[in-house]
């Protein structure tokens, strides 16, 4: 176990899988010589050479589709999007081709490709660079979607995603890249997709979150405990699809209250689905309406003063929690 950053954890995970399987390649804009726009791939070019760590032109549609075609042939490409926002120009390749080829071929073809990169707001880069498409990626049957919140999860989940035989959308967060925490060492460390994690056990309210919202939930839980004598349980979903429904329902049945927090936009967001599942599976256990805090329903703004109120902050989440307690 060593304490490393989320960025380095991803780097380790990628390096281990590149080492383990010669069919794995990493491609994307600036991943090789430039060492990655966010330095996630630093050192990999030197270690694995230019045939494995591949700089692409700014052509998301072509290199995403190329990766899908190569995966159909048995390779395991990992595609880095500098921002997940840029997937919008490659939409057809990801959501038509990667997600549907297996189905349309009656199961004759596998598409073991990983699309990864940061998908978050909060960095003053405006609406075009701040999209969080986990909800519509998860709305696509055939696709798997992962949103790691911690360095250990980033490593364990990227390794599982690369080994997975289905296409995976792996969504990171630029604000978390510098976050440091304990990360297990060794090639064998993996975290299965679809397994949520109880970050903090509690009895009075379940705060269910994914991605960076997990860290907001942790702050709120501390305050609830310190100032309000409330014991909050935090559930980090880690994967959106598959989804650990069992863990969600078990937690809500225990605490009888659910607060859902996400940095996704609200309408048809991930938590809309989770809200449905809770009322469907644990209706009689609820002592209060399900509460939900998501990003403000406006395009992501540039100005710090505006953007600071767009993402679900500590105060807002705390208020929502107190509302249902």
């Amino acid at each position, binding site marked *: 176990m060593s304490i490393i950053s989320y960025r380095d954890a991803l780097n380790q995970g990628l390096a281990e899988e590149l080492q383990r399987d010669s069919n794995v*390649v990493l491609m994307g804009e600036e991943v090789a010589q430039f060492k990655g726009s966010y330095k996630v791939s630093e050192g990999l070019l030197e270690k694995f050479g230019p*045939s494995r760590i591949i700089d*692409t*032109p700014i*052509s998301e*549609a*072509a*290199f*995403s*589709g*190329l*990766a*899908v*075609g*190569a*995966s*159909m*042939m*048995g*390779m395991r490409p990992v595609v880095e999007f500098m921002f997940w926002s840029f997937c919008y120009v490659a939409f*057809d*390749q990801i959501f*038509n*081709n990667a997600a549907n*080829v*297996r*189905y*349309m*071929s*009656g*199961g*004759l*073809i*596998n598409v*073991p490709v990983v699309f990864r990169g940061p998908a978050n707001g909060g960095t003053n880069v405006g609406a075009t660079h701040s999209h969080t498409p986990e909800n519509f990626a998860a709305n696509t*049957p*055939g696709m*798997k979607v992962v949103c790691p919140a911690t360095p250990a999860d980033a490593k364990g989940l990227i390794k*599982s995603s690369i*080994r*997975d*035989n*289905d296409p995976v959308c792996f969504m990171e967060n630029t604000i978390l890249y510098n976050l440091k925490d304990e990360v297990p060492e060794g090639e064998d460390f993996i975290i*299965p*997709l*679809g*397994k*949520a994690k109880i970050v903090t056990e509690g009895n009075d309210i379940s705060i269910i979150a994914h991605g960076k919202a997990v860290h907001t939930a942790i702050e709120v839980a501390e305050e609830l405990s310190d100032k309000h004598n409330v014991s909050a349980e935090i559930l980090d979903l880690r*994967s959106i*699809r*598959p*989804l*650990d*429904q*069992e863990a969600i329902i078990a937690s809500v049945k225990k605490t009888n209250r659910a607060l859902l927090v996400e940095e996704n936009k609200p309408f048809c967001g991930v938590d809309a*689905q989770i809200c449905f599942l809770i009322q469907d599976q644990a209706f009689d256990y609820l002592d209060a309406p399900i509460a939900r805090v998501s990003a403000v329903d406006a395009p992501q703004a540039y100005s710090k003063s505006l953007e600071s109120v767009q993402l679900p902050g500590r105060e807002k989440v705390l208020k929502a929690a107190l509302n249902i307690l």
Partner: protein
Amino acid sequence: MEGLHHDTNLEPTTAIPDAKLDGKEDNIIDEQESDLIPTDKDVDFALLPVNQDLSDNDKIDLYDQMVRIRRFEERSLRAYQQGKIGGFLHLYIGQEAVAVGSVSVLGKDDHVITAYRDHGHAIAVGMNMDECMAELYGKKTGCSKGKGGSMHFFAPDKNFWGGHGIVGGQTPLGLGIAYALKNFNKQGSCLCFMGDGATNQGPFYESLNLAALWELPVIYIIENNGYSMGTAEGRHSAGDPLARRGESFDISWKVAHGHDLYEVRSVVQEAVERAHQECKPTVLEIITYRYRGHSVADPDQTYRTKEEIEEYKTNKDPLNLFKRKLIEENVLSEERALEIDKSAKDEANASAEFASESPFPDADELMDDIYWETDNPEKRSSEGRIFFEVP
């Protein structure tokens, strides 16, 4: 061929008006380019080695394949009209020599991918009529178990990677297949078929750039049938010929006639050679024509005349032309041609029978073939719920 813009443009284009360099007229058509644009009279493609190497049986087999594709599609059209086939049915009738000629020069590490007008390519790579017809009928015995339909035939065991419904969407996939071949050190190629309409989709250009930049053995074959759905080439594309667009990326390109199977074989073989020997891409534009509408449900008289279709059928039908050639070469007799035709019709009818008698997929099968993991539950490594509504 009044109105058939694409068929009138095989001659070298003239200089861009007013294009001047250093004060004098610049002839933009260089020697190489003139060579690349074929003229009917210059070459007898039958005499080229690639075609001279064909045995009599090989030639009859090529003719047989074209006839089988046509009879299959004619039979499928009838089934469509009877309401047995739903959705879209994009027929390849008129273009048969392109798929058959192209696929006939391929070896074991050469691969094929195409768009939604895919029946011809599927049969050319060796898929059987039963699995294809059953797929059109939406039956369990179809090549995609009734989940793909007309636009989505696949046979990876025959190096055939679809069958793709979105115009131009297959162009990066073909690139990826070529990329994988190079990565695995295979001396192969990927023929990526597309229509003239697909040349105006952005991913095609991104793919051309990567194909040239990374030296990938992909061969883009633009089957130019003159119409992007109902919009004639002259109304959808600037610059002519379309294949010349490859030149911006220093990609070798060529224009050929698709009604002459020998000519198709010759240009595709040259491109495959380039892929195998130099690991480099090619753009081919093969001028062809479709007799039916874009899809058979679409009106066909709003953008072209019956006379135009009739003229092509009379003068350039690829099956008739090849039959005539083989008869002239004493390879084929009228009697044998009739037998081939009858056998193809019988096979097509039998496939319709097979499709008709096959069962529809069960509702439970909706949930098969979505994820590798759910199809292989004993090997599943992920946990959690993956489907949120089932039959």
